[in-house]
């Protein structure tokens, strides 16, 4: 989030509006501590129970039509998240 100071090792997670709409009280931008995408999802689940199932399937893996980008690179659950990273959770082009 531009202009917002974060702790040196915190990351910022940006969530899509249609995901936030499913969880009353959730936010588009979340600051947290996590060293991998898996830990990031764990924290989102702790904050808003049920959100894990919307982002991940039971394989377990990031859902096919959800993309997670870390500093511009597409990530999987195992991808490390460096301190201070900007993480974008995006919905892919999909549907009909």
């Amino acid at each position, binding site marked *: 989030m531009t202009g917002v100071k974060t702790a040196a090792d915190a990351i910022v997670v940006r969530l899509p509006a*249609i995901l936030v709409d499913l969880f009353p009280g959730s936010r588009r931008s979340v600051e947290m501590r996590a060293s991998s995408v898996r830990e990031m999802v764990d924290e989102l689940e702790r904050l808003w129970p*049920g959100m894990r*199932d*919307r982002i991940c399937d*039971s*394989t377990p893996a990031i859902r096919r039509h959800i993309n997670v980008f870390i500093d511009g690179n597409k990530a999987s659950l195992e991808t490390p998240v460096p301190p201070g990273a900007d993480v974008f959770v995006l919905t892919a082009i*999909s549907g009909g």
Partner: protein
Amino acid sequence: MPKKVLLLIGSKKGAFIAESNGQRKKWTLRGPFCETWPINHIAGDPETGTIYAGGGNEWFGAAVWKTTDFGKTWTHSSKGLNYEAGEDPVKAVWSLAPRNGTVYAGVQPAGLFKSRDGGKSWKHVEGLRDHPSKQHWQPGAGGLILHSLVTHPTDDKKMWIGISAAGVFYTKDGGKTWETRNKGTRADFLPEGQNYPEFGQCVHCVVMAPGEPDLLYQQNHCGMYRTEDGAKQWTSIETGLPSSFGFPAAAHPRDPNTVYLIPLNGDSKGRYVPDGKAAVYRSRDRGDHWDKLTDGLPQENAYFGVLRQALATDSLKPAGVYFGTNGGVLFGSRDEGDHWEPIAEHLPVISSVETLVVDR
């Protein structure tokens, strides 16, 4: 007279609710609900008034939505609505059956879940997928879906389910063990001489007659059937119908002998109403004879189909009958099918129609 009659409509772009009073002459439509997720089935619990909607979103996966205020506010959950890690994940919820404090959910790929806390959390009924036939289950064109949930009115341990294209299965021990129940139903798509397998039939819809738990009606990909012994043996009831193909079936709310079907022109001919003329077929004698009901339905240039869960009756006298088309039109009859009129037009593809009569 009931306070209100609700038509619960699942569509490719969310759920809708049409509401009327006991006269069923004027309807108001509300929706789309469930954030416009594809909703395969929406069903109400007549005991509590709670409405459940099941579907699956390409982005966010499967979930069951719930409203306790007739659609004003909704929540959703998929807690526990998962197979074990490594298995093909649950893609969508296909059918729901609230029954005596338990809600059952049939999903794709085919499996059965149940909730005992009003849809907040779900538990896999593992016995079904433990059936030895499971490794041979083949998806139909709509996917490997568990779509028909037929609960028993007095025995919670008994249930019939339908899977496309695996067939009908029955449990009498609450889902621990299952038996195939397909004897007498055809699989025309198999080689000659192998058309009556133990399982693998493409069942499209199974419904139970009121007051006679062993009397079931089935619309199959290959024929229409009746059983009078809890599906141990099925008998064809196709004579007098324009085709052997269709998707939905609906039972009358009080008369076990009355059943409704909407035959389509055939599985490889577009799956429209035959000759572009819409008709609901009603039998008053368990399928031995059929009445073609067309009054008020389009009789030229009608090229729509009706999907497997999109035909329903209500519990009023005379019974209302309703169906939704894959062209987005909802038709209704308040005189058991004798006369029809459109209730809503220009909706998305309609996946399901159910009724909820509210006396409160």
